[in-house]
């Protein structure tokens, strides 16, 4: 069983303490919703777990994972930037990330169909709308297997139908024993535990 334990985490960005002494436990098969006002450090927490922000103090331990790999290598990070090149087509972008990140999940065509962007496969990603780009970013969750999903505002720019699809995808992942940590203001559409972090300084 996989378990992510954070003990007394302190995060500092730009010389300012974003949050301090944050402890929580994330169990396999659990979806946790990180809530808090703007500037409370929700995005910083996700980036910190992904290994993209230095841990100032405290510890982050993952049990039950691959001991050779660090925590970030177990994670999908789906942030505000979607990491797609506007001059490559939708299919090329997804194929690149699937190969680069190691794949292991569903085929790109299946993933694109599930998220309703299959008909856009040959279109350069630069022409996608914000919601379509977000759906393409979410397709990466399906094509590459990672036990921990770090989702930053996953429902942003998604229409109601796509939000339902996303909720279904997340429910499947949780049912398969995955872990989800999502920073969001709105409801995710599946049973979640809430992790409220500090008030904005």
């Amino acid at each position: 069983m996989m378990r992510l334990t954070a003990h007394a985490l302190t995060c500092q960005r730009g010389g300012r303490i974003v949050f301090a002494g944050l402890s929580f436990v994330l169990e396999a098969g659990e979806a946790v919703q990180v809530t808090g006002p703007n500037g409370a450090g929700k995005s910083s927490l996700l980036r910190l777990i992904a290994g993209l922000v230095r841990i100032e103090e405290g510890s982050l331990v993952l049990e039950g994972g691959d001991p050779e790999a660090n925590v970030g290598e177990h994670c999908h990070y789906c942030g505000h930037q979607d990491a797609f090149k506007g001059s490559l087509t939708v299919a090329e972008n997804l194929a690149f990330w699937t190969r680069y990140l190691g794949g292991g999940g569903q085929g790109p065509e299946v993933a694109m169909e599930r998220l309703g962007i299959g008909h856009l496969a040959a279109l350069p990603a630069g022409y996608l709308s914000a919601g379509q780009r977000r759906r393409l970013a979410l397709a990466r969750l399906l094509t590459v297997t990672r036990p921990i999903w770090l989702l930053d505002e996953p429902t942003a720019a998604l229409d109601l139908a796509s939000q339902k699809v996303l909720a279904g995808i997340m429910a499947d992942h949780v049912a398969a024993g995955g872990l989800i940590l999502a920073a969001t203001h709105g409801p995710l559409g599946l049973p979640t535990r809430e992790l409220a972090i500090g008030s904005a300084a």
Partner: protein
Amino acid sequence: MTGPLAAIFRRDLLLAMRIGGGAMVGVVFFLAVVTIVPFGVGPDMNLLARIGPAILWIGALLATLLGLDRLFQADADDGSLDLMMMAPTPLPLVIATKAAAHWLATGLPLVAAAPVLGLLLNVPPEAMGAVALTLGAGTPALSLIGAVGAALAVSLRRGGLLMAILVLPLTIPVLIFGVAATNAAIVGPLPFGQPFTILVALSLMSLVLAPIAAAAALRFGLE
């Protein structure tokens, strides 16, 4: 070819070809630099023949640096760099692969264009081969050293100029031995092999050291 490194190599080459003919921009810039020199120095054919190899090398150096600041900046801007750093593939290998793709897209066209541009500088035909050979051996070092500068400047919004200032001094040894080898091939009296082997050594050293240095710079650039 499969695997993460092959994927990134193919993507970078594809991007270089798609975005406004990435390779051609360097060659056209190279052409512009080399063309204005005879106008500046005057029509002294002997002088041109003597400084020709140096001009070709300086032109190639500047053309390589052109756009090198985008090597990591573009990936940092759209979030690709975040995902690359999270992936299990070692970052120095990713950087070496990106530098290789950059060299293939911008360095190799310069090498191919150099003998043609040598005609403008009255470089003797028998020396064209030497010019192309030294550029072929030396420009990988320029791409790799430039990658270190690009990694340092990645967190700066307009790091292009800073990168040039950081990188140019580091490329001086490559320039010295590149020009020395070319001159040795044309006029002597030094044997060609001596400076050329040092030039190759510089490229090999950068291949080992630059990706590690650039990876450290990228990780440091993270907050």
